[in-house]
């Protein structure tokens, strides 16, 4: 019998919570070590996923399926394809790093923190593997609670509660409408085919009248757009990022935001392809607004963390732009860019977190000349900054290049405007870097700063390894997504020419 790897990945953190509950809450070291061990084991379990993954097929792999509520057509149905594989690997890869990053940062309520972290991990992986709409929705919502607690309990005292509630309500607003859309889809599918199921793969095939697609695309799209977040639903993000503890920001940026873009790729576009084509201009323009607006706002930030948060807004604009091209380079670039953003923005938040631990301030004006007391820190900061602005040879370049390539194929105007975002990114990131790291060490407090410890270097080493790897040889990663992307692009191409009936009003079912 094959090992149910995916289920192990989903439920191992839950088991880990069981272990943590038994441990003594006073002994922080033990709790941290235990969590680290659990997350490393989790990562090890995810490795077979990577190596046994068959890149030649777009079909779902490692599928597990058990009836959950058969009368309703709900099943515990999970699997991965090229899209989700990379995101799962990103999640399992980043979690041990996050645990390491909490070593000094989190000193009170350590036990609860670790429990939240593990619960979050389980929820995130659940979202990426779920192939049943009900199951997906459950994971999607479950994940909210630990993240909400992470921000609200361990965030900055001043505004953490505000940020946590804002995060929760914004996300929930989108997802409850998605729930109604899921139900409408469910009954539509049941009515047209006679079988009632929440099976996503089966639903891909059903023809939905355009009018209905239009509304459902918007309902699903709102949930994901808030998560990504698309302009103008992004206002929760800077607050959440700024107030969250370092690790919260890392997970938020690296994984949680990807759920939005992943949602578009997995649900919105394949389920409602005609509507997706219809909405290309709207979403592309919103994405471009994000790219440029995010960049401009970043430039003016005085707080390092806020600056990175807005740069996040800008970078994910590229992902959305790429996905909405429905071309090979655009979509593949979008996926790679999701990973890139996870690595480099995650690393940037860690960098800010480390300097904050030392100086208890994040204001750019308080720094300057950090390269003198902290050469290693400065070097790592440099690499990550360059990766974030897309220097060739590092990961950011690959993603942005592919996305722009895909966009040029479909719409030159979009691509031209979006490309300016790359330039802006260079402006604000390098300017920020210059103000923080270069120059004279004017502030005496900065002169005595300690450079990175071995633990901190160990946190960055794997991140930088992959930043360079993706930059130099992206083929390793692009291969995994190729088959799925081809399938996706072909499906979208076919949908362009398929006619669906124009109008239809959902009337419920005859009794």
């Amino acid at each position: 019998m094959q090992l149910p790897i995916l289920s192990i990945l989903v439920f191992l953190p839950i088991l880990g919570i069981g272990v943590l509950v038994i441990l003594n809450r006073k002994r922080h070291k033990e709790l941290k070590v235990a969590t680290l061990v659990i997350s490393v084991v989790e990562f090890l379990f995810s490795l077979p996923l990577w190596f046994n993954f068959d890149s030649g097929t777009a079909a779902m792999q490692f599928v597990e399926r058990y009836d959950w509520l058969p009368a309703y057509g709900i099943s515990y149905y999970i699997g991965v394809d090229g899209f989700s594989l990379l995101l799962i690997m990103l999640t399992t890869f980043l979690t041990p790093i996050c645990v390491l990053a909490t070593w000094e940062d989190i000193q009170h309520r350590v036990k609860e923190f670790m429990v939240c972290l593990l619960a979050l991990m389980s929820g995130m992986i659940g979202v990426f593997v779920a192939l049943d709409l009900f199951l997906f929705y459950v994971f999607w919502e479950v994940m909210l609670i630990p993240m909400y607690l992470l921000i609200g309990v361990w965030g900055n005292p001043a505004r953490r509660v505000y940020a946590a509630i804002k995060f929760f309500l914004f996300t929930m607003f989108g997802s409850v409408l998605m729930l109604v859309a899921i139900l409408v889809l469910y009954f539509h599918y049941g009515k047209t085919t006679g079988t009632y199921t929440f099976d996503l793969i089966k639903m891909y095939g059903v023809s939905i009248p355009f009018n209905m697609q239009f509304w459902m695309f918007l309902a699903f799209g709102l949930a994901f757009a808030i998560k990504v977040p698309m302009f103008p639903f992004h206002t929760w993000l800077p607050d959440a990022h700024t107030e969250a503890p370092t690790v919260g920001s890392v997970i938020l940026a690296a994984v949680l935001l990807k759920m939005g873009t992943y949602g578009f790729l997995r649900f919105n576009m394949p389920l409602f392809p005609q509507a997706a084509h219809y909405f290309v201009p709207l979403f592309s323009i919103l994405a471009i607004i994000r790219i440029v607006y995010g960049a401009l706002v970043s430039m003016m930030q005085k707080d390092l963390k806020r600056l990175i948060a807005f740069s996040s807004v800008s970078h994910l604009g590229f992902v959305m732009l790429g996905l909405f091209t429905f071309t090979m380079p655009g979509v593949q670039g979008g996926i790679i860019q999701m990973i890139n953003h996870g690595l480099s923005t995650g690393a940037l938040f860690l960098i800010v977190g480390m300097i904050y631990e030392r100086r208890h301030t994040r204001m750019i004006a308080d720094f300057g000349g950090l390269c003198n007391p902290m050469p290693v820190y400065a070097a790592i900061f440099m690499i990550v900054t360059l990766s974030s602005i897309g220097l060739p040879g590092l990961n950011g370049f690959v993603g942005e290049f592919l996305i722009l390539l895909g966009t040029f194929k479909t719409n030159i105007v979009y691509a031209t405007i979006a490309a300016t975002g790359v330039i802006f990114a260079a402006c604000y990131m390098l300017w920020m870097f210059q103000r923080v790291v270069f120059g004279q060490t004017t502030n005496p407090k900065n002169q005595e700063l300690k450079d990175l410890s071995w633990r901190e270097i160990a946190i960055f080493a794997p991140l930088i390894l992959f930043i360079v790897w993706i930059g130099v040889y992206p083929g390793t990663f692009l291969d995994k997504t190729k088959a799925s992307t081809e399938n996706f692009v072909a499906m979208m191409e076919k949908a362009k020419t398929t006619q669906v009936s124009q109008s239809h009003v959902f009337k419920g079912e005859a009794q």
Partner: protein
Amino acid sequence: MTLTIPSFQLSSIGPWLTLTVTAILILVLDALSPKGQKKVCFSWLAVAGLALAAFQTIGLWGRSGTDFARMVYLDNFANFFYLIFILGAALTVLISRQYLEDYGKNLGEYYALLLFATVGMMLMAAGAHLIMIFLGLEVMSIAVYVLAGLFREDLRSNEAALKYLILGSFSSAFLLFGMAMLYGAAGGTLFLSDLPGRLGADPAMQPLVLLGIGLLIVGFGFKVASAPFHMWTPDVYEGAPTSVTAFMAVAVKAAAFAAFARVFFLAFPALKVDWNMLLWVLAVATMTIGNIAAIAQTNIKRMLAYSSIAHAGYLLVALVAANQLGAMSLLYYLLAYTLMNVGAFGVVILVGRKKDSYLNIYDYSGLGAQHPVLAASMALFMFALAGIPPTAGFVGKFYIFSAAVQAGYIWLAIIGVMNSLVSVFYYLRITVLMYMKPAEADLGPVAFSPAQTAVVAVTAAGVLLIGIFPGLIYTLAMNSVKIFPGL
């Protein structure tokens, strides 16, 4: 003239008899026992009676038909509700003893009244004749009026009882009036199974029928605390002893919904178009008013009172949907609601300590640090009430809204989910206070009495269990609503 007594089987009303006998036994023992003695045994006696009744109910499972000259239905719909009432009553008994003892009110009649009220509820759920339902309603209501005023030295408790009595009697009058009109319109029958055939017969009677149905809605709407008949709820819930509030919020509401659903689904399926519209408006108003008013509350009991109004609104959505799924979701949701709400009230009693000293929501500040397990269970109940997975509250809402969508009421479903979004705000505030605010003062030790702790533990486990494995209850509930052929 000879009076013929129709043949009947006592076993078909076994649970009623058991509870009545237990209640009388408690009263007698109370009268006989010497003054000042600790009255522990009554709560155990009540629980034993309820357990026996539950056992009998399970024995009745699967029976169908009527008994007592067609006055009583024997069906799984009734049985399912019996179990909800018994569960609600048993949990209430268990959270009551220590709480009442602190007040010096651990009286035999409290338990007897609780059991009588439960019998009344059973009459409502199984009544096959409108008068039977009315009798049940009165048996239940009168017992609960008294229970609400149990703390007779306390002004608020008095206010609660008086308000509930006067408004309740008023609503009963409406109900009776409605029944009278239906009696006239149907040509002299009040059997639920006869009504559908008779009501449509004479078009001239149509206004009378509609008026009758409207008045029934008023009567039932009052008991389920639906807007605009909800005005009594916050005051009564706040003033009544907390354990009684828990009982009212879950069992009384469940009983009213049982009768509401049975009457409307069984007797008026042909007039669905008419009453659906009215209930649609009521559902929207109830959800919205309940949720929005709850935001402004600082007393935890008042907040839960408004939240219970909002939940009545969700349950009305299930009635509006008026399909098999809707009826099933009603049953499931009421069970889930019983678990999560009694659990929440259990925590309120524990945190309130002696004589409800801590009922302000700010008293929950810092609870997460001082009593992690208690706070975690409260958080679980709050998330469940807000409808967040993997709790029973989520599955319940999922069922209800899917019933609404199936019936084509998409806007109703959208309004419903938007309302649960609003509700998240005030439920979340409790978790904010518990985990994200420092304690205003040292809360001191909480006296965990074994029975109360057990209630919180059992309800918490139940909320998770039927939330993660919704199939367990789904089958039972689906099986129970097969009796409505019109849906």
